[in-house]
């Protein structure tokens, strides 16, 4: 069985890839996807910790997994709102490139 460290390594990697994507990509949709990836990384971390942190009863500590559900729910809401905003933006500006969004600055 994979050890905790391996899970953490993978999830860390996932988080880093997500962050790198947010930084490197210019398309807002892609950036948004990368953000979701970061949330998934956190989910993976939580699940891993939950699996390896045993409670007094000997069972895994389910708090972490509970939080994962919350995160998934929130992410869904976020995506719904986020995509709506991005669509509105596209309708107004015909672009989803972040480099075009610099009217507010200084």
């Amino acid at each position, binding site marked *: 069985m994979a050890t905790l460290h391996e899970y953490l390594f993978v999830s860390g990697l996932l988080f880093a890839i997500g962050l790198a994507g*947010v930084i*490197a990509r210019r398309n807002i949709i892609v*950036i948004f996807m990368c953000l979701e990836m970061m949330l998934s990384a956190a989910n993976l971390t939580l699940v891993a910790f939950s699996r390896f942190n045993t409670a007094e009863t000997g069972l895994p500590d389910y708090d972490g997994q509970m939080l994962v559900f919350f995160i998934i729910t929130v992410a869904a809401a976020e995506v719904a709102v986020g995509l709506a905003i991005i669509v509105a933006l596209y309708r107004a500006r015909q672009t989803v490139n*972040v480099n075009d969004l*610099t009217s507010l600055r*200084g």
Partner: protein
Amino acid sequence: MDITWLLFLLPIASAAIGWLLLNKQHTLAAYLSTASVIATFVISVSMLLAGKDTQASFNWASVGDFHVKIGFMADQMARGMMIVVTGVGMLVHVFSLPYMKKDAAKARYFACLSLFMFSMTGIVLSDNFLMTFMFWELVGLSSYLLIGHWYQKESAADAAKKAFLTNRIGDFGFMIGILMIWGIAGSVSFAGIADWASHVGTLTPLMTATLGAATLCIFCGAIGKSAQMPLHVWLPDAMEGPTPVSALIHAATMVAAGIFMMVRFFTCFETGEAHGAPEADHAAVSLIPSFAWTTIAVIGIVTSLAAAFMATQQDDIKKILAYSTLSQLGYMVMAVGLQGSEASMFHLYTHAWFKALLFLGSGAVIYACHHEQNIWKMGGLLKKMPITAITFLIATLALAGFPMTAGFFSKEQILHVANHQGGMLFFIPTVLVAILTTFYMFRLVFVVFFGKNRSENAEHAHEVGPLMFIPLIALTVMAVIAGYEGIAGQMAPLFHHEKVNFGSIEFLSSIGAFIVGLVLAFVFYFNKDEDKLSGNVLSKVFANKFYIDEFYAKLVRVFQDAVAAVVHFFDEILIGGILVGGLSRSAAGFGALFRRLHSGNLQGYATLFGAGALLIIYLTVFVF
């Protein structure tokens, strides 16, 4: 209340009333002022006749048990001096009545004269140094106001400013001296200092040096007020003021204040007298180190000699008298420095009368010649205005030390001190000054009163009115009799003098100097229309006062104005620009940098977020 307070109150009241309330009623102000000075003269005389030392004071400023007092100490020296001050003052007031008759600002003039009388009274009667200093400054103020009486004239305004500022430089030293004396003796009152001096015993070398330094600092005040080298430059310029003012302030009284103050100071150390032990006469005086004495004496004789040389080549009648005054003050200072306070005060006292007379006489001449001051544009005035001429001549004789005039006795004393206390090094210059004095004074007399009229103004001159010549005559009387023991001894014991020894070297050199000077003047100037001696290098140097004024002007320009400009420049550049401006610029610079971080670019933000997050994590986990 002691009647002496009136000496303060009357003049200040008349000054205030005259200036503030009567500035429209000029004549009334003039009479008020004159009346007040006559009253003070009467009081002074009565005090002199009463012959009683009086003293009173009140706390002017008190902090805890420290008090600055205002009061008076009417001892014999002060009483005698008061006669000089109020006497000459009274005559000058009277002389001024006609002299300033047509002046538009007569009220101000007389108010200032009254203010001067008040201030001078303060110096004379003061019982402590702080009070002296206050009135010292006030005297400076009244002198400033009177020199600048015709302030619309550039030269008068400049001269007034110069006088005040030069005096300020002296007062800078004076104040330091007072502070040091206060530190050393623990008191600023003359009685307190005397008390300290008589009890202190011997001093450590540091204390002695400090006392010497303090003495010289105090002397700085006298240098300023009595116009000694190197602060003498203001006095000739001060002749821009009305001539009666020159007579009163810049010849007879104020300039003598420096001498008076030094004598007052040194008297504190003559504990022998205070404690009735004549043999210890100079015991406490020796507290003051010799370098201080020598410096004072040297400054005195150098001033005296230099001024005498300058006087020989001046063409302005008042300037000649001014340099003569300088020269005579130098005499007095030298005598003070040679520990001959008696001689110094004696000369001060006689000099006051005949120098005031000379100035008033010159005033009469100037008045008669429609404000012509160049002696080469006068001439032959003896016939036009005989009273003035004769009184002037008598005053000249007195100044030159013609036997049996007042000046003769006092000059004798000075020569005596120079010879006995100073030795040849001082005696020879002193005699030289005596020769020069006779020479330039008779140059003046010959050119102005003899020969022919050299200008229209001189041709139309005529004798002045009684209000003017009565003071002249009164002063003439004093110029003749003031030196005799009967009169001088009345004034104060300090004027006491030894009998003239007709065989002594002093007497012979005095007579010799008079004759040499007279002959030279006669040869070169009698009945001449131009100055034969002018034109050579030496006389140019004399006429231009050794170029000291020019040198000072440069000095001021370089060391004051240039430094001020440089400092101002640095103040703006260094402090305003770099220090403070730099701070605000760097704040603004950082602000601009921070603003640039907010570039509006989402990608940039994400990058900065990430970088910042990494930095924070690094710091938190590995550094803190």
